[in-house]
C-alpha cells in the first residue's frame, strides 16, 4: 500500500554523523540556554538597578512610609533628598481607575462572551471575536488621542455631568464638580483597552463548558437563559476571575491613555470625577523634567508599580491555572 511509504526514513544524509554535527548539540544547547536566561538577566538587572537607584528615597522615608505618604513635593537637589515623596495618591489613583476599568469591562466582557458563544448566529461569531481582538491591537497613543477629542467631550463628560446632577451626586463617590480629566475618564478608556483580554479569557472558559452538562440542562427543559445562568456562568467563573485579574494587571501598567486622561494633579479625592494621578502617569509626565532627587522618587514609584503588577499577575495566573488550562491566557 502507498500508505507505507511515509514511514521510510526521510533522508539518511541529514542524520549522518559529521564533524560539525558533533558540535551542533552543545552549541545549540548553550545558545538556547543563553536565550532563555536573558529574560531572567534582563528582569534581574532592571529590578536591581531601579531598586538601587531609588534607595535614597526608601532610606529616607522607609518602604512603608513611602507607600503611605500622601504628599508628593519634589525638591531640586542633585545629591540629597530635600523634597517629600509619598506614593499613596498615585497608588490610590492607579488602583481606583483600575477598579473602575474592571467594573466597566467585566460585565461587558461577560455579555460579549455569552452573545458570541450562545446567542449570535453562527456566521456572526467569528467576525465578532476577530473585531474584539482587533481592539487589542490599537496603539494606546491612538486611544489617548481619540479619548481627548472624542470620548472625553462626548461620552465621559455628559455621563459625569448627569451623574453629578442626580441624587447620586450627593454621595462622596460621585461628588461634583465633574472634571473632564478624572479617574472616571481614565478608567473608562482603560476599560476599552482591557476589554479584549478579559473577553478572550471569558469566552474561552465559557466555550469549554462540557457539552454534556449543557445538553443535560437543555434535556431537563431549561431555557437558554437558564442554561447560561446556571451552567455556563458558574462553570466559567474561575476563568472569569482569572481574566479579570489579567485585565487588572494590564490596567495597572497602562501609561499613555492614563497620562492623557487622569488629570495629573498629584492629589487624591474620593469622587470618581476628581482629577487625580496614577503611578504610570506621574512618571511619564515628570520624568523628562525632574531633578535627580525627583528621579529617585519616580524610580521608587516604578518599583512599587512593579511589585503591584507582579503580585496581580501571579495571582491571576494561579487562579487561571487552577481553573484548568485556558487558551485565552496565552494572549497575555
Amino acid at each position: 500500500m502507498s500508505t507505507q511509504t511515509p514511514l521510510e526514513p526521510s533522508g539518511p544524509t541529514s542524520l549522518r554523523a559529521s564533524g560539525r554535527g558533533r558540535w551542533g548539540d552543545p552549541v545549540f544547547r548553550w545558545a538556547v540556554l543563553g536565550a532563555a536566561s536573558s529574560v531572567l538577566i534582563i528582569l534581574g538587572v532592571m529590578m536591581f538597578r531601579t531598586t538601587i537607584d531609588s534607595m535614597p528615597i526608601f532610606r529616607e522615608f522607609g518602604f512603608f512610609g513611602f507607600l503611605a505618604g500622601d504628599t508628593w513635593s519634589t525638591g531640586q537637589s542633585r545629591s540629597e533628598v530635600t523634597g517629600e515623596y509619598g506614593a499613596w495618591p498615585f497608588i490610590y489613583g492607579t488602583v481606583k481607575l483600575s477598579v473602575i476599568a474592571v467594573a466597566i469591562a467585566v460585565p461587558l466582557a461577560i455579555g460579549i462572551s455569552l452573545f458570541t458563544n450562545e446567542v449570535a448566529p453562527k456566521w456572526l461569531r467569528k467576525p465578532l471575536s476577530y473585531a474584539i481582538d482587533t481592539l487589542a491591537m490599537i496603539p494606546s497613543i491612538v486611544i489617548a488621542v481619540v479619548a481627548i477629542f472624542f470620548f472625553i467631550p462626548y461620552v465621559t463628560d455628559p455621563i459625569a455631568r448627569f451623574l453629578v446632577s442626580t441624587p447620586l451626586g450627593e454621595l462622596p463617590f460621585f461628588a461634583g464638580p465633574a472634571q473632564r480629566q478624572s479617574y472616571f475618564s481614565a478608567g473608562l478608556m482603560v476599560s476599552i483597552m482591557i476589554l479584549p483580554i478579559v473577553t478572550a479569557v471569558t469566552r474561552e472558559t465559557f466555550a469549554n463548558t462540557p457539552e454534556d452538562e449543557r445538553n443535560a440542562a437543555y434535556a431537563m427543559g431549561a431555557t437558554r437563559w437558564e442554561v447560561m445562568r446556571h451552567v455556563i456562568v458558574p462553570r466559567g467563573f474561575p476563568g472569569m476571575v482569572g481574566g479579570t485579574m489579567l485585565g487588572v494587571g494590564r490596567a495597572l501598567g497602562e501609561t499613555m491613555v492614563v497620562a492623557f486622561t487622569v488629570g495629573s494633579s498629584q492629589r487624591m479625592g474620593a469622587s470618581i470625577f476628581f482629577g487625580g494621578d496614577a503611578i504610570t502617569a506621574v512618571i511619564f509626565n515628570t520624568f523628562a523634567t525632574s531633578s535627580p532627587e525627583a528621579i529617585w522618587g519616580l524610580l521608587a514609584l516604578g518599583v512599587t508599580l512593579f511589585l503591584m503588577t507582579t503580585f496581580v499577575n501571579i495571582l491571576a495566573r494561579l487562579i487561571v491555572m487552577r481553573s484548568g488550562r485556558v487558551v485565552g491566557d496565552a494572549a497575555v
Partner: protein
Amino acid sequence: MRSPSRTTAALTALAFVVVACGGDGGPVTAEDAGASDVAASDEELAAGDGDTATDLIDDGDQVGVEAESADLLGAGATFITPLMLEWTRDNEPGIQVNYQSIGSGGGVEQFLSEQVDFGSSERYLTEEEIADAQEIRGCDPLHIPDAFGSVPVVYNDDDLDAALETAGQDSLVLDAETIAGIFAAEIESWQHPDIEALNPDVELPATPLIPVHRSDGSGTTYIFTTYLDHEIDWWSEQYGAGDEIDWAAGTIGGNGNEGVTANVQQQPGGVGYVSYAYAVENDIPAASVINADGNAIYPDLDTIAAGPNSIIDSIPDDFRYDILDVGADGFPIVGTHWVLAWECGYDDAVGDSLRDFLGWAVSAEEADDLARDLLYGPVTGDFSDRVLEQVERINSVE
C-alpha cells in the same frame, strides 16, 4: 498588476527612510553636533582599512568645511518654543538649532548633565546648581536673557464672555489674591465676593472653576508661583514657588504649555496660566491683572515690556533676577527666559556657533521683530549690550 504597484510602494517607503536618515531631522546628540568630533571619528576611520573608510572620510571632510557653523542642540522651556523655532529658521548666521521643547526643568537637567549645548529655562539656577555646575565643568554656567514674556491667566467660559460683553467690559479683572484663591481651589466659582468686587458691572456666571496647572517641571510655573509667592503671604506658606509645586486638590495638570492650553480649551470652567503666545495663538481669553499701582492691566506688547523695562537698570551682573512689584502700565506676571551656556569646554566650532546665534538673537533687529510678532518682549538697548558682553564669555575660558 499588483506586483508593480507593490514595488513602487516599497521604493517610496525606502526613499522616505533614506531621506529621514540623511536629513537634518534625525536625532542629533550634542556630540554629533560638534564638527570636530566628526573629524575625530574620521581619524579613527582612517586608521581602519578599505574603500568604505575612504568614502566616509570624503563625507566627513565636507562636514569639516562647514565647521565654523556647527549645529547646536538645545533643550528646555516650552515657554520660548514658538520664538525659538522662528529664530532657528530665520537666523542671520544661518546656524542650525535643534531645539527640544521639554520644559524648563528638563532644560536645566540636560544642561547640567551636559547632554545639550545649551539649556533653556525661565528660572535661573539655584546656588546649589551653580556650585554643582562649577564642579561638573570647572567653569561658570552663564545666564543669558534673550526674551521677556508674560504668564497671563486664561480661562474658558462662554457664559463669562457673554456677561463681559453685555457689561461692555473688555476683560475679566483679577488680582493676586483672587488668582491665588482660584489656584488654591478656594474660590470655586466666578461668583465670589472678591471677584465681584473687582468686576462690579459684570453679571458673573456660576460656572464651577477647574484650575489647570503644569504637570511637568516648568519655568512658566516658576514665574507664576514666584508672583503669587511674593504677593500673597498665605500662598507662600502653603504652596511657595518653584518650577513644580504641590498643587491643591481639585486642580488638574497638563503637560507643557501645549497641554495646559488644550486642557483649558477642553474644560468649560477651566482656568490656567500659559505663556502669552499660546493664549494668542489659540485665541483663549485672558484676564487683566491688578498690578502694584492698583491698575488693571491686560497683557499686550507694551504692558509686557513695561515690567522688565522698569527694573532693567538694577539687573545684577550675573543676570539672576525675578521681576516683581511691577507698577504703572506694566502687566505684573512677567518673567525672563534665559539660555544657559558654559564659560568653557565647548569645541571651538560649537562655541562659535553658540556665540553667533545668541549674539544675533539678543542684538539683531530682525530677531527683536520676530520676538514682538510672537508677543515676547525683546532684549534691546543698553541691556542688549550688557547681554552681548555675557554672550562673549561663552567658551572664553580654556
